[in-house]
């Protein structure tokens, strides 16, 4: 049955409150089972051998000694993973990323894998595998990789989107262009033009739980995979394709997930675990080390960006251009620079704008999504440059943003016309926020920046089953990355009109529910929330039919209010109301089990906008920037469970803070990652931070019955720009390279001081 997804402005009883999450007790007592916490009879330990070279031909892999070792049950190389992808280039590259095929493309690229009776034996077996490499020239920097003399990674890669079509292969995958109006005409109208170039380094999602799985393939072609993933259904289809299994015979169960942030949307070691299990004919548990997670999963792109913004003295932006160069690692993946083109100017209504994106391959691990992927870097460049424009024309930077802010009816950089959106409200809330009045001392500065993320919907499927005692099982297929089971339970309780405590929400495995798209794009609460509403409404229709039977009245005369069926009309005034519990109890005699289902492509995800305020103190002796105050203002559409909405806003902001100030992949001249651990890749700790203040705005998404927008990603977008602006405000120095780590700040301060001296000497 088709349902209307329009926002109705209904009043809420349950939604908007702060209920305790159902998985809380398991998670505080150590009982919750994550990727590495499952075991199977006879399981083996799987380990992966990885390339120490950034780029090398694999001349020979000698596994004979390892295979003969007692306790070693399987050794695999790419020969055990024949290419079954049938001409699907993307899938073939996924296969090659999982296991090198004749050539190691980056430091950490898998070359072979073993399964043995215990970890010690498996480690010894890895050491016994002899790989003969012939090193090739490598390139890890995006600008270097685009140069004509750069080593070419793939002889088949010819840049798409350029005219004429290139005759020679290069590392540039594609050129994308979008925008509207005439930027050059816009610049001609401008009183002030600011041009600046920026770089951002590669960062990792940094989920605390490494990738882990337990794979079991039996000789009859059936298989099970227990795995920490954001997308069990996607993992199922990808693994089935790569291994030649029937989709229906591979059951994937998503464990509790110890953080993902986009990094657990792609397969890495899972196909290897399945291949090992198939070869050994025993279950195989494979858990990545932190070193492997950094070297061989999917960090975000490092970038190089040019911005040009022209404005009139009154603050009107007349023209703007962006040139974005994003490296996506060693393989062709998502068009990351294209996403950047779509997001860079999205907060503003700029009549004449153009964004050009270049997607590039380098000898680094294949890039994966990282929370609002591609947007934070573009926003860093745009938001920093906007503050410089404001300074040039002598305008308050928040007022400059408000003057040009995108409103309903404005055109997004990628074409569509905005519906109701929240960025103007967010900036107005920033202006009014007490944070803006907090006193700043010498060496301290304040910065404001905006951020945008699309959010998505997608294929979604839920089951809602009512037990004879009137309690409800709700099975969803999006995974719970941060309290979603509580939100889904609240939505079901709201619709059915029963107590939150009477709903039990489970994340279903792939054999128990229809396909659900991966939990990404901030779609979990939006999509599964929508499907839960519709499934509950279907169940209510069944409940009404049963009530009609019990009361012996036509079903058209039954209404459902606050968890009860009621016959409407004077002639029924003597009939009792029937509660959900009463109807459920009688269900065996009125037609059997009562359930609601919904399968939907959840369209109409509402766009997410945020504005952040940060106060920073810069120690000019050490270059260290300390966050003094931080405020996040974000439009949630409707906050189902405000605690977990705030949690998303705070967590995203702090990931952005880490990126802005400290986190980066450091590659040596040899093309090897020099800091693959949490000691040297330092994410923010509690003592680095103040409390992160939040303000949730609720501008309803017209395309969701409750007005929900995705909230997970948007708030990682503004921090880099906001912090760069705060540092500039504190020191007078504009940072153009993130992270704005102590060494970069010191160098920038030194350079500024040197320039001042030159000026005074001259």
């Amino acid at each position, binding site marked *: 049955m088709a349902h209307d997804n329009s926002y109705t402005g209904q009043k809420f009883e349950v939604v908007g409150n702060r209920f305790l999450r159902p998985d809380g007790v398991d998670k*505080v007592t150590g009982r919750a089972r994550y990727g590495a916490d499952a075991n199977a009879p006879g399981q083996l330990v799987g380990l992966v051998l990885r390339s120490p070279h950034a780029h090398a031909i694999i001349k020979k892999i000698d596994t004979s000694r390892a295979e003969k070792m007692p306790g070693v049950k399987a050794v695999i190389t790419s020969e055990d993973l024949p290419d079954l992808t049938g001409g699907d280039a993307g899938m073939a590259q996924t296969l090659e990323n999982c296991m090198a095929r004749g050539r190691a493309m980056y430091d950490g690229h898998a070359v072979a894998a073993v399964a043995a009776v215990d970890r010690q034996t498996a480690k010894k077996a890895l050491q016994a595998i002899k790989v003969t490499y012939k090193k090739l020239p490598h390139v890890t920097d995006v600008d270097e990789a685009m140069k004509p003399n750069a080593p070419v990674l793939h002889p088949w890669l010819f840049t798409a989107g350029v005219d004429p079509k290139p005759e020679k292969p290069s590392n540039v995958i594609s050129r994308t262009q979008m925008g509207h109006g005439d930027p050059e005409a816009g610049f001609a109208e401008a009183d002030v033009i600011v041009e600046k170039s920026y770089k951002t380094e590669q960062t990792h999602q940094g989920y*605390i739980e490494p990738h882990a799985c337990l794979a079991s393939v039996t000789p009859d072609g059936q298989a099970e995979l227990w795995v920490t993933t954001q997308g069990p259904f996607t993992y199922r289809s990808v693994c089935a394709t790569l291994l030649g299994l029937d989709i229906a015979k591979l059951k994937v169960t998503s464990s509790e997930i*110890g953080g993902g942030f986009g990094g657990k949307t792609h397969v890495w070691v899972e196909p290897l675990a399945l291949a090992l299990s198939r070869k050994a004919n025993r279950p195989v548990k494979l858990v990545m080390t932190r070193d492997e997670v950094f070297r061989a999963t999917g960090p975000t792109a490092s970038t190089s960006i040019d911005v040009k913004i022209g404005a009139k003295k009154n603050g009107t932006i007349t023209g703007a251009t962006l040139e974005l160069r994003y490296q996506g690692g060693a393989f062709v993946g998502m068009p990351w620079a294209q996403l950047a083109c779509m997001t860079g100017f999205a907060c503003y209504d700029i009549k004449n704008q153009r964004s050009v994106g270049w997607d590039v391959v380098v000898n680094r691990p294949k890039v994966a999504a990282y929370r609002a992927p591609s947007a934070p870097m573009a926003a860093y460049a745009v938001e920093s440059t906007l503050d410089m424009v404001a300074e040039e024309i002598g305008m308050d930077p928040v007022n400059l943003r408000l003057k040009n802010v995108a409103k309903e009816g404005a055109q997004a950089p990628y074409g569509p016309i905005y519906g109701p959106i929240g960025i103007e409200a967010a900036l107005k809330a920033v202006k009014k926020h007490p944070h803006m009045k907090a006193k700043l001392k010498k060496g301290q500065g304040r910065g404001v920046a905006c951020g945008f993320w699309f959010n998505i919907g997608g294929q979604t499927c839920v089951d809602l089953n009512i037990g004879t005692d009137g309690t409800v099982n709700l099975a969803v297929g999006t995974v719970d990355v941060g309290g979603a089971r509580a939100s889904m339970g609240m939505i079901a309780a709201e619709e059915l009109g029963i107590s939150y405590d009477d709903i039990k929400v489970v994340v279903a495995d792939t054999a128990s529910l229809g396909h659900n798209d991966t939990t990404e794009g901030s779609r979990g609460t939006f999509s599964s929330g929508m499907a839960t509403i519709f499934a509950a409404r279907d169940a209510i229709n069944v409940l009404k039919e049963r009530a009609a039977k019990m009361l012996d009245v036509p079903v058209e005369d039954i209404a459902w209010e606050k968890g009860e069926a009621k016959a409407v009309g004077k002639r029924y005034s003597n009939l009792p109301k029937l509660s959900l519990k009463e109807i459920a109890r009688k269900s065996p005699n009125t037609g059997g089990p009562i359930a609601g289902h919904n399968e939907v492509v959840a369209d109409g995800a509402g766009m997410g906008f945020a504005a952040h305020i940060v106060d920073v103190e810069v120690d000019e002796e050490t270059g260290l920037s300390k966050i003094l105050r931080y405020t996040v203002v974000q439009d949630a559409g409707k906050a189902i469970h405000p605690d977990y909405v*705030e949690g998303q806003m705070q967590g995203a902001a702090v990931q952005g803070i880490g990126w802005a100030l400290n986190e980066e992949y450091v590659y040596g001249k040899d093309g090897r990652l020099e800091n693959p651990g*949490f000691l040297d890749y330092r*994410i923010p*700790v509690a003592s680095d931070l103040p409390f992160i203040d939040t303000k949730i705005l609720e501008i309803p998404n017209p395309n969701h019955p409750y007005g929900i927008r995705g909230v997970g990603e948007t708030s990682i977008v503004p921090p880099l720009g906001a912090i760069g602006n705060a540092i500039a405000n504190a020191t007078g120095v504009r940072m153009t390279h993130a992270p704005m780590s102590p060494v970069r700040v010191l160098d920038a301060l030194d350079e500024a001081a040197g320039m001042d001296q030159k000026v005074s000497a001259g």
Partner: protein
Amino acid sequence: MSDAVLVTTKVNGDVVEYACPTDEVLLDSLRDRVGLTGVKEGCGTGDCGACSVTIDGQLVCACLVLGVEADGREIGTVEGMAEEGELHPLQQKFIEHAALQCGICTPGFLVAAKALLDKNPKPSENEIRYALAGNLCRCTGYDKIIRAVQDAAKDMRKSRKR
């Protein structure tokens, strides 16, 4: 496991015996031999605190201690925090304050926060932030964790006074 050593230890008050190789870390012994998978591995190098346990009351990363070193000592893990079916106040406050999102770091935070409050029942915000600086959380930005610890400390002080 030719070099295995028999270890007799006490874990969360119960006597436990296991045989482990001399190069095995306590983290693996607890997870794989004692079955306490509440002790999490986030890094294996002592940087993330997800495997925080106590040995004779001292807070350590179980990935930096050998399994054989537990012999004759008393180990405390997250599994031992709730007593007689009652959650420890820290556990309760973590749930109430939404101080966990994915929850993978939670066991380590709880063990570390308990070690702090055992020593210092009235820590300042800064003392909490620095005491927990060895525990990484990537989801929460620490805000709600700090608030949960502050609130638990307050409740524990009240119940002590009674």
